[in-house]
């Protein structure tokens, strides 16, 4: 029996995580992730969560403990945000290189100084090269579904990589929405028992992670790249299977929204992605031929799908992040995907940094400026007269 749970993104994520039955959760509280770990603690108290909850003394240790547990062969989950994610950085690389499918929610929050707890995606964008699969969610339902899908994806033999499920601070983490929750048995059927790629086993003693020479190390990196490519194929399959089983679908690597017969396609991520749908509705109502492709996975990046879009329309990117000294990360990815294969124009906007609100009205303004031919290649929305 499916039930409906009305709760915040964090509690929804906790519910999903517990339904995946992780054996070990190791986490450290940080605003705005706190209610996620409190949710896990509550399920531990009620007995719904039967695993071990290690209340570590830092995020670095949270990830290290998840790595240790995952290497012992069990299923692991954690959650963090912003500075917590940055403190984990070394161990994010470690988990991915060790091919350990730790599943983690990251609540996208501003990086200080100054202290600011609102939505901004620079925390996870600056982890894009760690080897983790990265999802960006746009609703609580998508958070719930993606957390469960991530266990299946990350633990799949062809992937065996950690997965980060990111969602915006407060806009989703602390906002209640109704979410369909399937029954436990269906979830159990959906996620197979974890079969580790390797594990610490006294009956088969191996030394993991000792000194490795360049030509061997390079192969490890190539295998990781292959695993991300495999994930690219598996994400649509898993999304499709979820849709068949539970009737809900949020797209695969991209979610296409009203992209038929358009001259422009807007690409955005996270909460701006859902706000963009309202903007597209309004724009199309007013005769603007612009659709939306919401980016669900930043790693693996959907190069091929973006190229398909770039063959029929010009692209507009909104980035709630910036690689200082260059440009928005999504903007760069779009151009790289099209390079020498499409002559579509690409425009980039930096918007909503520091948690600044980005409304559908703002998104409409950005799109109109591009369509009216007035936009520069890259602009700071709200700071350059848009």
């Amino acid at each position, binding site marked *: 029996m499916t039930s409906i749970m009305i709760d915040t993104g964090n509690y929804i994520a906790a519910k999903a995580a517990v339904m995946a039955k992780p054996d070990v959760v190791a986490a450290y509280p940080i605003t705005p992730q706190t209610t996620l770990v409190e949710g896990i603690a509550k399920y531990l108290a009620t007995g719904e969560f039967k695993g071990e909850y290690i209340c570590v003394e830092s995020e670095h240790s949270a990830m290290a*403990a998840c790595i*240790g547990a995952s290497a012992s062969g069990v299923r692991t989950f954690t959650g963090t945000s912003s500075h917590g994610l940055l403190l984990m950085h070394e161990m994010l690389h470690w988990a991915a290189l060790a091919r350990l499918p730790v599943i983690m929610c990251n609540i996208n929050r501003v990086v200080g100084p100054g202290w600011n707890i609102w939505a901004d995606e620079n925390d996870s964008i600056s982890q894009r090269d760690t080897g983790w699969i990265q999802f960006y969610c746009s609703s609580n339902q998508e958070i719930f579904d993606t957390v469960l899908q991530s266990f299946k994806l990350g633990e799949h033999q062809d992937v065996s990589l950690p997965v980060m499920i990111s969602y915006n601070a407060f806009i989703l983490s602390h906002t209640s929405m109704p979410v369909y929750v399937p029954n436990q048995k269906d979830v159990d059927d959906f996620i197979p028992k974890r079969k580790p790629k390797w594990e*610490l086993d006294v009956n088969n*003693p191996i030394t993991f992670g*000792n000194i490795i020479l360049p030509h061997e190390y390079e192969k490890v990196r190539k295998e990781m790249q292959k695993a991300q490519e495999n994930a690219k194929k598996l994400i649509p399959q898993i999304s499709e299977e979820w849709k068949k089983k539970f009737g809900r679908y949020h797209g695969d690597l991209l979610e296409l929204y009203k992209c038929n017969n358009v001259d422009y396609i807007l690409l955005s991520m996270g909460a701006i992605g859902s706000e963009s749908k309202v903007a597209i509705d309004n724009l199309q109502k007013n005769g603007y031929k612009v659709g939306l492709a919401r980016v669900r996975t930043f790693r693996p990046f959907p190069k091929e799908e973006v190229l398909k879009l770039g063959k029929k329309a010009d692209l507009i990117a909104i980035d709630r992040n910036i690689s200082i000294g260059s440009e928005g990360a999504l903007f760069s990815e779009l151009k790289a995907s099209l390079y020498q294969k499409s002559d579509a124009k690409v425009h980039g906007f930096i918007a909503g940094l520091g948690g600044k609100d980005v409304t559908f009205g703002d998104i409409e303004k950005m799109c109109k400026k591009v369509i009216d031919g007035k936009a520069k290649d890259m602009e700071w929305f709200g700071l350059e007269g848009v």
Partner: protein
Amino acid sequence: MAIKDLPREECYLPGSAACPGCPATMAMRIVFKAIGKKMIMVVPACCTAVIESLHPKTSFDIPTMNIAFEAAAAGASGVEAGLRMQGKTDITVVAWAGDGGTYDIGIQALSGALERNTNFIYICYNNQIYSNTGIQRSGATPYAAWTTTTVSGKTEFRKEMGEIIQAHHIPYAAQTCIAYPEDLYNKVKKAKSIKGPKYIEIMAPCPPGWRFGMERTVEMGTLAVETGAWALYEYENDKMTFNGKSKLILEGKIERKPVEEWIKYQGRFRHLFIPKKDVKKIKDIETHIDQMWERYRTCYL
């Protein structure tokens, strides 16, 4: 337990990449014998990460996971929890770290794991330097010792890690030394039998790091204890028991040897003897050791 009665089985395999006279390997061999094959080891960045030898080979017949420098205790916490969730409660989880990974960069994760009552043994092999990176000072480096980052000799005294550990009031902690394999064996064996967090620190004189001949490792360990620069003790349920010569020194039954007897063989203290004997600095070292024993006597006699 006499040396001849130690288990014959070797989990420390021949062909490792250790330096000749390496104290870490001497200690590890005994630790493996004391715990046996039902053991999983977590190793942060330290000499052991080299000693293991190159991928895909290994010199350990024990499942071993390398982890980041500051993460040994946290990684071991995860391994322990994972094993427990699988019902594999007969496996001993050991974090095996150097003094850099213990006294300095790893102290936070260690303190956290002890406070959380993690059921594991944390072993620090203390060679009083960052040896793997080529002899830099650590929080365990003694006063006046040369390292590549204390070129004229360290100007500070080492930390008392033992006292920091005791402040966690864990069920078992011990200090031992590679020169006393039976003592090491017995302490590890005892730690294995106790539930909860255990901490064992092994004095491990390092020939290239301390600048002495590789044939002198054991002698440097013996002298560390006989001069009182290092104490052998056990800490159990908030009670301290000194062992071997350290017990006799504590009780005043023997005089500890002058520290000069120990440091004169070590090139890292050479500047205290050549070109001219630095009487004051040697006295400072002596006084510091006296103060340590005075503290031990006040608290534990």
